[in-house]
């Protein structure tokens, strides 16, 4: 296996981009990343695109070819392009497939992208498409929604560990605090614990400000063998680990409702591959589709003891400047959550941080960063570790 580096990155603006199409945002991200890497089209060997539900959100399948075509990579040079799907972990998984293809030696320069266009349909239709990431036959048919599933995780966490609504709200407050400094973020307004608790209840105990929004956006990175990365950039960011794990599709089949065993397993595999421990990680982008998800994530990845995710958040340990900054980008909550793009966007944030280009949200001296991308209520988890040093 060859070492792999990221040599170019780009996020589009995240938000309600009604004036722009699916292909518009993908092309912007892809071309941006390729320009950042200083790569020409003929050099690109392959492309992997994370997309959850193009068929439902924009009634378009065959996303791989569509993107290759509109990026100018189909005609004449016929770059192979593959769509990757794992619900909200589609982006992370596309990145992982790209890393595989470079690491294997089959391909040299590879684009890993993720995209979703969610606001072209009314929000009930968007929610229904998202519900397809859970078990439609045995959860969806009973009236389960994604906020509902995570609300049941939250309820159990509160019951077992005494986690409070205020602690959940604190996750949203922190992530909005970070997101206001991110130029691509959907929501740049700071919020307060009080405003979270006063916002309408979606699925008790989760308020609407505990939930990530419906978002359009795309992200892309360019991968290269580590040996040649310096030919393209002075600041290649090295992939130290890529890990993935599966769990039951339905929440009701889990060993412990408050633990995403797929996150634990993917985290463990990533730490082993990188020969690192949680204390070696300087910052992490976790999958905060709901506030409780961030609390579970920091526990599952070893940044907080089981049951203490709420307290750790309340104490400010996960803020920028804290012990382990979590979601410096603003996370899914403030930055927005274009489901297929999120896993790649997390990597873009870590790369910008490790390059020292994150502006007001910069984590001082960041050397090693982690991303954690979850599909559904935890049936897929993808974890990556990146480093400035090879």
């Amino acid at each position, binding site marked *: 296996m060859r070492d792999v580096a990221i040599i170019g990155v780009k996020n589009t603006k995240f938000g309600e981009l009604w004036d722009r199409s699916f292909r518009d945002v993908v092309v912007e991200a892809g071309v941006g990343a390729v320009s950042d890497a200083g790569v020409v089209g003929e050099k690109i060997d392959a492309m992997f695109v994370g997309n959850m539900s193009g068929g439902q959100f924009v009634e378009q399948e065959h996303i791989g070819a569509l993107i290759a075509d509109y990026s100018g990579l189909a005609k004449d040079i016929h770059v192979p392009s593959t769509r990757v799907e794992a619900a909200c972990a589609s982006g992370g998984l596309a990145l992982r497939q790209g890393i595989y293809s470079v690491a294997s030696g089959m391909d040299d320069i590879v684009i890993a992208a993720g995209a979703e266009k969610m606001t072209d349909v009314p929000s009930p239709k968007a929610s229904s498409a998202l519900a397809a990431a859970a078990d439609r*036959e045995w*959860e969806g048919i009973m*009236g389960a929604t994604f906020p509902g599933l995570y*609300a*049941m995780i939250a309820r159990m966490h509160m019951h077992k560990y005494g986690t409070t609504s205020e602690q959940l709200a604190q996750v949203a407050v922190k992530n909005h605090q970070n997101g206001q400094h991110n130029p691509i973020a959907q929501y740049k307004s700071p919020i307060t614990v009080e405003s979270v608790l006063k916002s*309408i209840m979606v699925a008790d105990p989760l308020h609407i400000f505990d939930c990530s929004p419906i978002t359009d956006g795309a992200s892309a990175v360019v991968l290269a063998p580590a040996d040649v990365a310096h030919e393209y950039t002075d600041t290649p960011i090295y992939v130290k680990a890529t890990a993935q794990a599966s769990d039951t599709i339905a929440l009701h089949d889990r060993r412990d409702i408050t633990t995403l065993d797929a996150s634990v397993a993917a985290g463990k595999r990533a730490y082993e591959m990188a020969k690192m421990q949680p204390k070696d990680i300087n910052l992490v982008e976790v999958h905060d589709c709901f506030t409780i998800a961030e609390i579970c994530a920091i526990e599952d990845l070893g940044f907080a003891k089981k049951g203490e995710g709420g307290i750790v958040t309340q104490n400010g340990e996960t803020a920028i400047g804290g012990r382990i900054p979590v979601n410096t980008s603003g996370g899914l909550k403030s930055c927005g959550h274009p489901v297929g793009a999120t896993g790649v966007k997390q990597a873009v944030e870590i790369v910008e941080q490790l390059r020292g280009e994150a502006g007001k949200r910069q984590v001082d001296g960041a050397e090693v960063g982690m991303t954690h991308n979850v599909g559904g209520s935890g049936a897929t988890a993808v974890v990556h570790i990146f480093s400035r040093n090879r």
Partner: protein
Amino acid sequence: MSVPRFWRKQIARYNLVGTHCKKCDDYFYPPRNMCPACRREGEIEDYKFSGKGEVVTFTVIHTAAEGFENQTPYVLGIIKLEEGPSLTSQIICDAKDVKIGMKVKPVFRKLGQAGERGMIYYGTKFVPELEVADKC
């Protein structure tokens, strides 16, 4: 959900019929064709659950799933059956009465309908086992 997709599991939904692995003595609801523990070594047979169970966790849904708008707010929970498996179902009771650990029993109810003129889905919901049940 399409008619055949629902119909295939109609008996399981109506009667709370799941499966049991004779080899490892694990019970499954929803039913599984293959035991996830024994895999190909397993011996799967149908099993009808009594439906007695308790609430593992729950939520009160205020923003409904598509097709459930007229039921809002509704209580959705994970129920652990006495034989071991857990399932997701609505719990029919006042939202303020539901508690983790509450004993429940199954009832046959309408789950929903496929559009205005479509098929009606029936299946199993749960009610509190104690006195509140009589009011539901």
